[in-house]
């Protein structure tokens, strides 16, 4: 385990209750800066809840979640929105993109909501690194599932986040695409020096990660 100085994520005594039932319990878990870790568990084991808590989308019942030293659970709602926009890139299983606008506009929205200036050169750079430059002008609802998954990865990394959280990023994909998406995710996280957390029940990708948290 890494020391506190280089820890990107430090979880202590985390518990989340829902409808009188404990849906998530993580006594202690540390993730070092730049690491790629897997959160494993069957459906309903609290994987999504854990990612939501880390992303500042949900407040846990008890415990602390420090991201780069700051306790996310203590932030005000407005601070959490700002923290999430600047530091977290999210990739979700099926919820990829805003369908009514173009791929480029989806990435611009991510930049805009993060409070960053619109940077089309960065967008082009990310799209080309994922080999989907040709999709920039396409309306997001018109592209295929595999393409959308790549665009979702592009959007997660476009702001160079410190933390990339991926929730079941591969379970909607076939074996070939699963392998490709995972490789891209790891590659992109490494390219921007981000810490990567992948929550999944997909056994196909277990072997690609050294560090795991079993829920």
């Amino acid at each position, binding site marked *: 385990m890494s020391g506190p100085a280089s820890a990107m994520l430090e979880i202590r005594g985390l518990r989340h209750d829902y409808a009188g039932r404990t849906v998530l319990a993580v006594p202690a878990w540390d993730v070092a800066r730049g690491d790629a870790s897997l959160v494993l568990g069957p459906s309903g084991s609290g994987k999504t809840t854990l990612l939501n808590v880390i992303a500042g989308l949900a407040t846990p019942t008890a415990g602390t979640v420090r991201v780069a030293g700051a306790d996310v659970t203590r932030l005000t709602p407005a601070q959490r*929105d700002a923290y999430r926009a600047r530091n977290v890139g999210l990739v*979700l299983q099926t919820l990829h993109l*805003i369908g*009514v606008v173009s791929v480029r*506009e989806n990435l611009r929205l991510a930049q805009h*909501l993060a409070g960053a200036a619109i940077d089309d050169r960065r967008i082009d750079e990310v799209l080309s690194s994922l080999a989907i430059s040709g999709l920039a002008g396409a309306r997001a609802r018109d592209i295929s599932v595999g393409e959308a998954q790549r665009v979702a990865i592009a959007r997660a990394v476009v702001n160079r986040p410190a933390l990339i959280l991926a929730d079941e990023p591969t379970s909607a994909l076939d074996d070939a695409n699963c392998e490709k998406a995972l490789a891209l995710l790891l590659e992109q996280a490494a390219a921007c020096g981000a810490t990567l957390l992948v929550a999944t029940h997909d056994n196909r990708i277990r072997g690609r990660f050294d560090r795991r948290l079993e829920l």
Partner: protein
Amino acid sequence: MRIARLASAYLASRPLLTALNATMLALGVATITFLLLVTTQAEDRLTRDAKPVDLVVGAKGSPLQLILSTVFHADVPTGNIDLAQAQAIRRNPMIASAIPLALGDSFRGHRIVGTEASYLDLYGAKLAQGALFAGEMEAVVGSEVARRHGLAVGATLTGAHGLAAAGPAHEGHPYRVVGILAPSGTVVDRLVVTPVESVWHVHEEHAPPRPEITALLVRYATPLAAAMLPRAINANTAMQAASPAYESARLLDLAGVGVDTLRWFAVVLMASAALSLFVALTSALQERRYDLALLRTLGARPASLAALTLVEGVTLLVAGVILGLALGHGAAHALGLWLAGAGSWPLTGLVWVDGEAALVATVLATGALTCLVPAVQAYSSDPASLLAKR
């Protein structure tokens, strides 16, 4: 700015629904705008025509008919009164002026009014060309009459009996046009004006033994006259006195019932439009709840989601209002053109009347309140529970 772009992308992604919603709103706005334009202009017109006359003295009968026939020139007279009796009233010290009218004939639907030059002063009508009538069978014509029938100074015209365009003609007694009046925006624009003697001359074959006129248009010298003169005339003479202000108010009241009904109908139309706006926004919200959750994961504040919904609703609203105003004004203008063809009173869609600003403000305020409910829903949606349930 990006939020506004996103809102317009959502609207553009469902063109049919967007167009239907805007149209529903527009129909309500158009109906009320149309009613406002027509009633305001009709009231203006009635008021302007009735205002210079304090009292009309004419033959007994319906007071409304007396006013319609002698002030608005839209009905047949109640009958004639004895000139000598009328002259007696003229000498009353409470009267500032009394202008005689002799009616009976018309030129292609335009009333020929036998009167004195002071009748034109009553409405501030000025000559555009030629001169005032100086003798029998000379006439000045209103701007509208001249325009519609291409009359110039020196032209002749013959009257026909009654008000209808196709009454029996008085072919043997042509009038000579000696002057054309400038537009005054009053009833005079649609009249042919001539000395009283002309009318007597045209009808001399079947003239009564004593000279008669149709009515006297009276202006009071003192406010006291309003209280005393009508009662005195109605009680003590064979004539009746009627007040144009009172009768036109009565006329507007009668018409007002119909207008009110239509107005309520339009309000119902707008309420249903507001409801459909509400349904559209709420169902859109339901449809894109994952989009909203996604925007939250990207760091969007709840207020931004509320703004997104609000911008979408208000865009629809403004489009509906603009379309509605255009439709209402267009319809009023089309009706005006049609009425002009029929020789009736002028109506235009190219003016902005008083009630419209209040209408627009009311619609926008109500609509914005309507949008507020889904906006609050968007504001308070919880992305985490939606993502966890998926």
